């Protein structure tokens, strides 16, 4: 950075940057503030910004009354379940495509990508009917499978772009030393692949946690994750803003933290490696 940066410029861009950031972040901030208000303060005009009666009762009520824990557990089961399945099937595939590519690897990868582009609404009817007839509606297993399939192309792609960056010479060397494919996988590849796998896990958890088409259409109560739980606040009788805010804050907090850690990898995962 040899460029000369004047103080005026620094001040201007800093002010502009913080203002833009504040405006974009504001709805989330407002939601968090509202979650600490009483219902009365939440509705008041003019709005109360900081000097209201701070309370944590909404969090207590949300925990107790509306089965928040039950839905949060469902979200965790769904996110972890679909990620584990995705890795179990995706790692071998990505490994094969990166280290033993054939003439067809390229078209296979692109075909996988194309499956992700099918709008879910195009297969809603049959999936719904299959689920209804096999008793999979509102079950963990059914929903995990759907999310697993929905995200598998992204998992394979992301792992593939990471695996491809592992130098092949290392494998050659290991092979010369007489390592078997199994040993190669455990002692050489895995340690080098862990950062890529970790990013893939993060992205997949974020996507599964926030997915709201299949969860809204295929679950009602038993297996319903937080997306569905929050949607239940849209009914007129459910309009308690402070409680809605508390439930929403709890629902997005864990993913927000994960997301902030994985910004860089996110770009790569979501653009299928087209922008790094």
């Amino acid at each position, binding site marked *: 950075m040899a460029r000369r*940066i004047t103080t005026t410029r*620094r001040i201007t*861009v800093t002010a*502009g*940057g913080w203002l833009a950031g*504040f405006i*974009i972040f504001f*709805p989330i901030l*407002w*939601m968090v503030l*509202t979650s600490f208000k009483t219902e009365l303060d939440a509705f008041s005009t003019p*709005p109360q910004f900081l000097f209201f009666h701070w309370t944590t009762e909404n969090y207590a009520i949300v925990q107790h009354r509306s089965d928040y824990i039950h839905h949060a557990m469902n979200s965790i089961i769904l996110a972890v379940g679909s990620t584990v399945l995705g890795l179990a099937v*995706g790692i*071998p595939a990505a*490994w*094969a495509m990166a*280290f*033993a590519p*054939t003439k067809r690897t390229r078209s*296979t990868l*692109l075909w*996988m*990508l194309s*499956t*992700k*582009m099918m*709008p879910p*609404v*195009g*297969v809603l*009817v*049959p*999936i*719904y009917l299959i689920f209804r007839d096999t008793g999979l509606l509102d079950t963990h297993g059914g929903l995990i499978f759907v999310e697993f399939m929905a995200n*598998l*192309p992204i998992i394979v792609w992301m792992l593939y772009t990471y695996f491809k960056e592992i130098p092949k010479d290392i494998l050659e060397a290991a092979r010369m030393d007489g390592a078997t*494919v199994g040993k190669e996988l455990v002692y050489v590849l895995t340690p080098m692949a862990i950062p890529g796998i970790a990013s893939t896990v993060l992205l997949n958890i974020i996507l599964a946690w*926030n997915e*709201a*088409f299949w969860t*809204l*259409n295929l679950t009602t109560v038993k297996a319903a994750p*937080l*997306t*569905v739980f*929050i949607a239940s*606040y849209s009914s007129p009788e459910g309009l308690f*803003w402070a409680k*809605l*805010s508390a439930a*929403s804050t709890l*629902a*997005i907090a864990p*993913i927000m933290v994960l*997301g*902030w850690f994985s910004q860089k990898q996110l*770009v790569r995962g*979501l653009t299928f490696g*087209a*922008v790094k």
Partner: protein
Amino acid sequence: MATQQTTTLGRILSAPSIILLFLWMIVPLAMTIWFSLLRYNLLDPGQESFIGLLNYRYFLTDPAFFTALANTLILVGAVLVITVVGGVLLALLMDQPILGRGIVRLMVIAPFFVMPTVSALVWKNLLMHPVSGLFAWIATLIGVQPIDWFTNVPLFSIILIVAWQWLPFATLILLTALQSMDEEQKEAAEMDGTPALSFFIYMTLPHLARAITVVILIETIFLLSVFAEIFVTTGGGPGLQTTNIAFLVYAQALLQYDVGGASAGGIVAVILANIVAIFLVRLIGKNLDA
């Protein structure tokens, strides 16, 4: 370099992914196509009969279809314009020597991690409520009559919410692309006294062209299927004013139980998405060789 042994192993290892995805894609899609050719209503079980392309004729000549198609295109187009233009401007700003840039960056990308049902309800109630919402208060502050967002401008309200969710995505990707620009080029331009605007037009924009294309294509894929935001705020209304193709198909299938008609609509949605997908796959495929 791959030996016969590794090639075989590679096939075995990638088989589960390929088989599962193939089944996931082909079985429901084949069923959708088959249903779309039937008269099939869930309220009338056992009465299915083959009616050829009649469902398509009904669906495609239904005024609701054109309204939904128009809404879909307006929604996608408006969100794309807002997020791409806003994203470029924000990315340029974030690339500046801002004090506390890391924190500003976190604030800017935060909306992307908010689940759709949360962002829709927070906007609808806390911000856009005609009486107690924050926007109504701001309107009275500046002496304007507050509007009832979801009654007066329902589609625009949805556009705002969805654009807020996708602006961080565009910004993040464009910023990543911007940061790969040659630092020396910028320096040289600055020394030569190149005006900032012409540097932007002749150097920055061409450099960002690829990233912008990626943003447009990927966002389009997701925006064609916007559902949860409509589901929890307007339910497609008032009337059909916020019904897009995805919501129309959902309503046809799960609210009116018309499996045949909904399936025909689903196939139309697949075809629309495919038109975009072809371009995206080609673009990413090109990158794969490099």
